[in-house]
């Protein structure tokens, strides 16, 4: 064999061994670093996967996260509730975490807070699925397929223990320095939106819509929603969909994506509670932190109102 080739192959072998050692060694380090978090979104995700035990689980995006106050639900319904809302996450994420959680506990009720645009294909939402990467090693059969939606080669890169913790360090440092308050998963917001704020945010939103690409319904999302509802059903768990209050005018009717959500709800006989255009909240802008999220005061009020409606499903 050519001597240069021999040298090269030996070098390559050494390099692969060094890479493997680094990946395992440094991988252990970053994994440990990740799981020593005491607050923040990853901490809450981990807690919901491993520890949270409640009669009511609330799934959804940041709107769910900031809108449902477990203590109020607890007081009114005499049932323990837990908020699994996660910022930027849409239906694919919800279905995945629901699977993980329901493998461990059996609540009485599952609430899915939906937004009207959830059935539209969204690269942003797909990108955000990467937040599941750090948990891949624990639930590969559940998380693997979902990450593949982002890109096929995730399967390959996920073999690296370091890659599994990609883009987590800034979060870890930030919440080490500025711990996030949460109450059983609920994260309160304390700002009160001014008329100026709402005007400029509505303007920003409409600009984004003008410049954005035309929206199309994604069948993968539709299937995921059906899956979510089915998962609860098949375990004899009650499930309810809720459109929580929104100040931006994004209504749950007259919108193809929302129509799909409602249609799926009807087909499976799942109740849909619609607060998206609720007059009470429309007339109380001071309950909002920004045009899409209620503040703590608004969340408490909304939680009070929603519990009255939920009593029918318990």
């Amino acid at each position, binding site marked *: 064999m050519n001597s240069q080739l021999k040298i*090269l192959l030996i*070098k390559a072998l050494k390099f692969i061994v060094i*890479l493997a050692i*680094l*990946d395992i060694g440094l991988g252990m380090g970053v994994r440990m670093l990740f799981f020593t978090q005491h607050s923040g979104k990853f901490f809450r995700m981990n807690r919901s996967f491993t520890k949270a035990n409640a009669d009511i689980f609330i799934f959804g995006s940041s709107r769910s996260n900031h809108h449902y106050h477990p203590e109020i639900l607890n007081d009114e319904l005499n049932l323990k509730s837990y908020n699994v809302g996660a910022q*930027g996450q849409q239906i694919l994420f919800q279905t995945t975490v629901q699977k993980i959680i329901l493998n461990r506990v059996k609540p009485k009720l599952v609430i899915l807070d939906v937004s009207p645009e959830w059935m539209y294909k969204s690269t942003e939402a797909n990108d955000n699925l990467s937040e599941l990467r750090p948990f891949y090693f624990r639930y590969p059969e559940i998380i693997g397929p979902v990450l593949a939606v982002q*890109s096929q080669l995730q399967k390959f890169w996920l073999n690296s223990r370091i*890659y599994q913790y990609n883009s987590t360090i800034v979060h870890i440092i930030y919440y080490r320095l500025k711990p996030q308050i949460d109450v059983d998963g609920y994260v309160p917001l304390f700002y009160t939106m001014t008329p100026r704020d709402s005007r400029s945010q509505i303007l920003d939103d409409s600009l984004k819509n003008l410049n954005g690409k035309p929206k199309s319904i994604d069948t993968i999302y539709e299937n995921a929603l059906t899956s979510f509802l089915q998962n609860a059903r098949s375990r004899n768990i009650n499930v309810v969909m809720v459109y929580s209050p929104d100040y931006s005018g994004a209504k749950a009717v007259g919108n193809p994506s929302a129509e799909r959500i409602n249609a799926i709800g009807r087909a499976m006989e799942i109740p849909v509670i619609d607060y998206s255009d609720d007059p009470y909240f429309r007339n109380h802008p001071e309950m909002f932190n920004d045009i899409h999220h209620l503040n703590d005061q608004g969340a408490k009020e909304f939680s009070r109102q929603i519990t009255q409606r939920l009593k029918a499903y318990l």
Partner: protein
Amino acid sequence: MYFNTTQYILFLPLVVILFYLTPFRFRWLLLLAASYYFYVCWRAEFMVVIIFSTMVNYFSAILIARNKTNKRNKKIFLTIALVINLGMLIILKYLGFINDFFHEIFGIIPAPTSPLLYLIAPVGLSYFTLQSLTYVFDTYYNLREPEKHPGIFALYVAFFPLILSGPIEQSTHLLPQFRDKARAKLKSVNIEEGIKLIIWGYFLKLVVADRTSIYVDAVFGNVDRHGGITFIAALILYSFQIYSDFAGYSCIAIGSARLMGFDVLHNFNRPYFSQSISEFWTRWHISLSTWLRNYLFNPLSYYFMRKLQKERYLKIIKPELLTYAIAASITFLMCGIWHGANFTFIIWGSLHGFYLIVDRIINKKGGNRVLNIIITYILVLFAWIFFRSENVHQSLTVIKAILTHPGSLYIPFDSDVVAPVYAVLGIFILLMVEVKREFFNNSFSLSGNKNEYIRMASYGFMIFLILYLGVFDASQFMYVKF
């Protein structure tokens, strides 16, 4: 295919392995096929342009060489070649812009509605056109014999590591390498150097460039809303974005070529450590500035120098200074135009030309190194305003904001806030490495260490940083647009 896709990561090793398995005689064919495949992955129609360009230059060089002694004929063939090459470039890239310009200024020519005016320029056109022209010029200046083998010449034009965004090679440097049998032998040092460059390139692209772009795009996408402080922050991030994007691309290109034993000209040499704009242009986009100096600046300065020497009335200004001013202005105007069909690029280029002329007039030597670096960086940063803005109006808005209302630092909403922090982290690591290389080059080196285990561990650590901090969805290399 872009460099940061799985496609390329599979394509490259495959080509390299096939390269060493192929007998030397047929390697040009393998590389040419690979290069054309690489190019077709972009758009099959673009192939027409590359093949046409290749044929024009191939025959021009042969005709020029045949007329070695006949100065007039030689000039004619050179001119024809120049007209066709530059004509193609102008029509495919600038026609829409020129049409708009005449329409606005003179009102003639009806409003641009024909789609033909906005033909999409084949990717890499600006690059391989210049690379091919070095060949034609070098033959004209008797610096080399024309390449008789059409396949090898075609390879020189389309060589896949360079085809998209350079470095712009010189025919006297790269073309002979394709015939060099000794160079083509497998050497483990080439593989190691190639991989080292590629890893560093991916670090620059995935850890630094891709993170910075999010904040920069958000700020420049909404110019009327931001204050001076935000713009300064965005500009600083942009300066690192454009550097790491382009330098990262270049490193991957050079590293890929190196895997096969080819030595490609370097494109960047830690440009922001330059102590003057003059020095900046010896460290930034080196292959382009070399091209401009050899084929535009030098010929222009010799021409004007001779003409001006005869003028008697030039008592106040020295003829060599005036020569420099004219040659530099024209050269940098062309440099600006080459970068794109927009007035912002023209202003950017002319601004650099202006900097150079003023620098020459002041002619200050020495001074504090750090201060020189800072001043030069600020001048470059100011020019980047034009380069980044979509139009002149935007640039002026930015400048006005910086000068008149600082405002407060824009902190993006929700998840977008994370990206700039990663960007700063990446830039910090980048600076650590570059400062070490620039100022402490003789002390202990990790990646250049004699001990191979230390070297390999340093490469591995770089890969760790890429996996831990990098962005993994395929976003575009910026310079490919040119």
